[in-house]
């Protein structure tokens, strides 16, 4: 005789392994909110070094970063007796949270440091300062916003 088909076919052909379900749910629960792709980055191509004794920082950019951000600078013209008040471009000016006015100076190649300025008034695109900047200083006229982001970090909103 050969084994015929069985009369009482047991029912449990879909019994789930409970260890599996637990593992699955733990995994799915942990996983769905996890981002494997592209985690947020603020900067990889800039270094921020604190300047001792002040709350300023030196922002040092890679050469590629300078070119990508399109940073342009302008030299403050040397003062002469008849120059009158110091005038800089409005593009270079920015304010911090408490209303103090700053510009970014460029003391060394690809290095940028904030410098406080006192604004007398703004006319058109010229800013008249109350106190002069050291002659020959290069100030950043394009890209100050990005340098600010690099120095302070950009928070998640």
């Amino acid at each position, binding site marked *: *005789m050969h084994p015929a*088909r069985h009369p009482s076919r047991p029912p449990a052909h879909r019994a789930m392994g409970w*260890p599996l379900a637990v593992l699955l749910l733990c995994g799915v629960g942990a*996983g769905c909110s996890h981002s494997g792709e592209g985690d947020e980055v*603020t*900067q990889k191509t800039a270094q921020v070094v604190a300047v001792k004794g002040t709350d300023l920082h030196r922002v040092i950019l890679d050469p590629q970063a300078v070119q990508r951000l399109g940073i342009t600078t302008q030299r403050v013209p040397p003062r002469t007796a008849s120059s009158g008040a110091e005038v800089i471009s409005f593009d270079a000016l920015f304010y911090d949270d408490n209303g103090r006015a700053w510009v970014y100076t460029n003391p060394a190649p690809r290095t940028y440091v904030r410098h406080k300025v006192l604004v007398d008034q703004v006319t058109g695109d010229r800013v008249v300062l109350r106190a002069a900047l050291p002659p020959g200083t290069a100030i950043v006229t394009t890209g100050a916003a990005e340098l600010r982001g690099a120095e302070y970090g*950009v928070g998640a*909103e």
Partner: protein
Amino acid sequence: MVRSLISASLRFRALVLTAALALLVIGGLQLRSADLDTYPQFTPPLVQIQTEALGLSGQEVEQLITVPLEDQLNGVAWLDTIRSKSIPGLSSIDMVFERGTNVLRARQLVQERMSQLRLPGLGATPTMLQPTSSTSRLLMIGLVSKTVSLTDLSVLARWKIRPRLMGVPGVANVSIWGQRDRRLQVEVDPRRLRRAGVTVDQVMRSTGNALWVSPLSYIQASTPGTGGFLDTPTQRFAVQHILPITTANGLSSVTIEGTGNRHVRLSDVTNVVEDHQPLIGDAVVNNKPSLLLVLEKFPDANTLAVTKAVDAVLDNMKPGLSGITVSPNLYRPATYVSSSMHNLMRSALIGSVLLLLLLTAFYSWRVALVGYVAIGLSLLVAALVLTMRGASINAMTVAGLAMAVGAVVDDAVSDLDTIARRLRRHRSGGETTPAAAVVLQATLTMRRSMLFAALIGVLAVLPLLSLSGVTGSFARPLVVSYALAVAASMLVALILLPALALTLLPSARTGRRPLPRRLQRWYDRGVAPYLFRPLWAFAAVGVLALSGLAVTPFLHGAALPALQDRSLLVHWQAAPGTSLPEMDRITEAAGRQLRTVPGVATVGAHVGRALTSDQVSDVDSAELWVTLAGAANYDRTLNAVRRVADSYPGIRHQVLTYPRDRVQAAANGTQDDLVVRVYGDDLSTLQAKANEVRRLLGSVRGVERPTVENTVTAPAMEVEVRLAAAARYGIKPGDVRRAAATLLSGTLVGNLYEQQKIFDVVVWGTPAVRHSETGVENLLIDTPSGGVVPLHDVATVHIRPNPTVIRHDATSRSLDVTASVHGRSQASVAADVRSRVRALPMPLEYHAEVLGDAAAEQTTHRRTALFALAAGVGALLLLQSAFASWRRAALLLVSLPLSLVGGVLAIAVVGANGSLGGWLALLAVLSLAVRQGVALFAAYAHLENQPGRQSPADIVRRGTRARVAPIVLSSLGVAALFVPFAVSGDIAGLEILHPMAIAVLGGLVTSTVVTALVLPGLYLRLAGLGGQTGPHSTEQPDRPLTTVR
């Protein structure tokens, strides 16, 4: 009852077959128009209310718009949470309803509340946004032109293109980035006015009264009057007035009221220009400033169909858009969806061909056809039921169907094997019973357990249904499609399979294909003798268990895989407070750089936000949408794009795909172990209290790294009137505000109507007057005595930090303190913190709450684990009642993890990205392994109950040999269906199925080995055979095996 069902289907088999054929055809057609999407709906029912108030600061938006609105809307039925964001110029309120709420009813209730609300006269109307799907963006269209100006393009987009697109069924919303509304501006310089002896008020009145209608309630134009009509004795004439002012020129010649005989005209003292409104956002497409239209879809819209309809509409409009380049390819999820479908169908087709060949090789082409139809119909019916319920076919439902493949294939194969074998025996034995009776009996013996099986199937997947939140939204379609497929295969096996088999099989020629017979012979000679050595089974168990345990540290939790979507989204966030021109510049530069990356086809960017858009952000935030060319290498291009984004310091960025972005946004807020939310009004007090809470948390055992949420601030100019100084001039604070408002923000004084379009006319300050702090300080305010006073004499202008986004939760400002929990259970830490926080002194109207999210998550996990445990116990009980033996039930249950070891090894191999597919594969293999194991045990039980003397070894040997062919065949059948997916690689649409296939193949190897080679040995040793067989229970020496077919 089952018997009568099967016999009825056998009797009316012609009808059944016709119905099945009809179902196949209709189902196939129906599925072609099914709603295909990437992910299921994973957001809870949501109603969004946005109120635009251009020119208001964030705090004023909050005070004047958000607070009254929230007060009015709070407490609506079924409301779960009410959250809001107030940013400069926009108030956005999100009302999240409990899961399962009917969105339309919720919207109705909200609308009723809103209609009772009156906002102060800011001209702001709260708008309820259209309901959109979870991944709402359907299409992004760029409009660029060299010949048409952006303002004219905006007019075209707003008045012609947008209405046509909104008329396409399925399109919920069209928002236009970079929209520049043409308007006439009367630009005043207070100094110039002063010199001419004219006040700003005079200019406003004159401009307003020059037009037909004005919103200024205090001038005559607020009541325009009608033209009227006159009746002559014979005719009636309507009188219509034609406004002669259509351009700036026309407006400049208007005389100013109150200037008497001097007849000063507007152009004498002001600049009348055509310009556009201050922008809240902008768009850059392919390096040029342009317009970007973003289309969003309704929750149940069919992506492919609606995209096609929109394409058709754009085609129709093309003749009227000469000189304008329309780029509908900036973001097209339809491309991903259709290529996913294409890949899926292709692999499924190849798999089904392989399955057909396999079945033909094992039996005959007729059997193959029957099996193929049964399997296909089961899956088709499941998919059909899903679409009829209104669900979409998405990655999760497809994964669920794939999980059920093991059960579906085994259903068909085991039934067919039994039926075919009995029919052959019936034929060769020359019995007199009709073939129908044979088929009926064969099906009955297989299906008698149907009810039990369905119960266990439901029981088994119940634990996953108890997951909540975003995870739950993903798990539910998975479970539903799996259960439907299993149920469908059950019905098909009961109704269709016998009918088909009876029609096709009896007339087949006798003789069995050599393959199954060869298999059995190999089993007899090659394997069986070794099987019953005692060491073999336990050694195998040991090896499997150890390898499984060894791999456990390398396993990853199940996470959604990265999509092979050829559209990338780059979040682009600059320092808070960055201006629009600067943002335009840097975004354009980044876009230009990205276009030079080989493999990138198009780059479209939008900055800030647009009216009724899905972005609630200021202009310091942008998004770049990068589309990759079809032939480009995905990973290489993605990495290149990432490198370009990384090369811009000072910008916070993230590169991901849009569906992933939406899932991230939906899941946000449930990632921290412990969250204490401090509610209050004043931000500095909130900050102080939050710091106190942080210090308190630091002292609680088990809490690590408590951090106060960062409040992002940007500098804002605050103008505060000095009351004493103002009183000296007779000026009130409101006067200063209104005067400054006109000069800095502009005042709408009237409208121009032109060919069904409406344009604004505003009085504004000249650009020179409103471009710096100095300009603000020097604004001239008219005094009641007729003079002017500069603003800085009556008010002070400070620059102070303002939060860029003011968030409310449950109508109150709040600040979160988050922490992680280690070393103690989250629930006990939460209880501890709750009691301590309650004891913390708080000023009036402030309070702190421990958010229930984390504890709730744990409860959910615990609940799901309990469900799973209950399911396991239920399965054990059912197995026990089936075998009438605890030992055998336990043996089978314990052997199941061993069967899965191959799959577990595969999970470790596929890595984190394929982890979800891997875990789902284990479920698929498990269902198959249990069925095969149970069938095997049942074969033994049947042999035991037969009269005659048999040794236990004999029973096991014969039983196994009888089952070895179906076991191997169903395993091979499942493998055949999955092989094309394993080979295809990680391509669009197969991100889950590809690792799943690899894990299934690995699991099938071990499960077949365990079922066919290890279980028999274990059964012999452990299942308590011997002494329990038939009436003559004596030990027999090994006999030569009888021939079996």
